[in-house]
C-alpha cells in the first residue's frame, strides 16, 4: 500500500520537475498522470493495492475542490462592475461548450457500439 502511495507521489514530483525544467504549459499532476499511465502500460495491468489507494482518492474527488472553492470569498470584489457580463458569459459559454463537445463526439462515433448509452 505504502509503496504505491510513494509511486503516486513520485509521479507527481517528477511531473512538477518536468514542468518547471522544461517550462511546459501543463500542470505537474497532469504530467504525473501520464507517467503513471506509462507505468501501467509497462506493467501490463493495475496492481490491486494501487487501485485500492487510487480508489480512496478518486471516490471523493469532489471534496478536494472545497478548500480552493472557499477561496472565492477573497475575490468577489474582483468580479466588480462586470459581474453581470461575467455571469452570463460564464454560464452560457460553459453550457454551449458541453453541448458542442458532446454533440461532436456523438456525431463522430455514430454507428459504433451503442452499449454505452444510459439514462442519468
Amino acid at each position: 500500500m505504502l509503496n504505491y502511495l510513494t509511486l503516486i507521489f513520485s509521479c507527481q514530483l517528477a511531473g512538477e520537475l518536468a514542468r518547471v525544467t522544461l517550462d511546459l504549459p501543463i500542470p505537474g499532476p497532469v504530467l504525473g498522470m501520464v507517467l503513471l499511465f506509462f507505468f501501467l502500460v509497462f506493467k501490463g495491468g493495475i496492481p490491486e493495492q494501487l487501485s485500492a489507494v487510487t480508489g480512496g482518492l478518486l471516490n471523493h474527488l469532489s471534496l478536494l475542490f472545497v478548500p480552493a472553492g472557499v477561496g472565492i470569498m477573497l475575490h468577489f470584489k474582483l468580479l466588480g462592475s462586470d459581474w453581470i457580463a461575467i455571469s452570463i458569459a460564464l454560464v452560457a459559454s460553459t453550457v454551449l461548450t458541453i453541448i458542442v463537445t458532446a454533440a461532436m463526439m456523438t456525431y463522430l462515433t455514430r454507428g459504433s457500439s451503442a452499449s454505452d448509452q444510459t439514462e442519468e
Partner: protein
Amino acid sequence: MDDLRDVWVYLSASPLLHLTLTLVAFQAGNWIYDRTDRNPLCNPVLIAVLTIVGILLITGTPYQDYFDGAQFVHFLLGPATVSLAIPLYRQFDKVRRSAFAILASIITGSITAMAAALGIGYALGASKDTLIALAPKSVTAPVAMGITEQLGGLPSLTAVLVILTGITGAMLGPIVLNIFRLKNWQARGLALGTASHGIGTARALQVNEVAGAFSGLAMGLNALATAILLPILWQLIF
C-alpha cells in the same frame, strides 16, 4: 464564558477545526444531494463552499486561517489527479478506438469555450481584464492562471472564474445533456472534462467509470489545447 473563549482560541489555532469543518460541510452537501434524488442543482461542492463561506464570514475568520487547516484536503488534489491514470488505463481500448473523434471533439470544445466566453463577454461590454480572465476558465486552475498571466491579466480573477465554471458545468451539464438527448457516456465525459475540468471530472466519475476516464483525459488535453490556442486567438483579436 472566558473558558468558552479559551476553547475557541485553542481550537481556531489548530488545523483540526477547519479540516473537520470542511469534511462536515461536504458530508452535509452529500446528504442533501442524496435526499434530493441526486438533483444536479444540489451540487455537494457548491453547498459545502457556501456553508463554509457563510460560517467564516459570520465568525470573522480570515480565509488564510481556514486554509491552514483545509490545506491537508487541498493537497490531495495533486495525487488524485495522478490517480486518474487508473480509470484512463481501464478504458484505454475505447480511447484508442476513437482517438480521432476524441481529439476533434476536445479541440472543437476548447475553441467553443474560448470563443463563446470572449464573444459573449465582449458583447456585454466586459473590460479587457475581465475578458482575459474569462477566456481560459474551462481549464484546470494552475494552467488557466498561467495563461492569464502570460496575456497580462489577473490570475486571481481567473482562479475564481475557473472554480465557478467547474461548479456550473457539474450542475447544469447533466441537465442540458439530457435535454439534448446526448446519452453516450464517452461523449458526456468528454464534454464535462473539456468544459469544467476537475470538478466536472469528479462529477462524471461519480456517475460512471467510462465517463470519468474520458473526462479526466479531456481535462488534460483541453489544458494543453487552450495553452497553445488561446495566445494565438488573442493575438488575432486584439
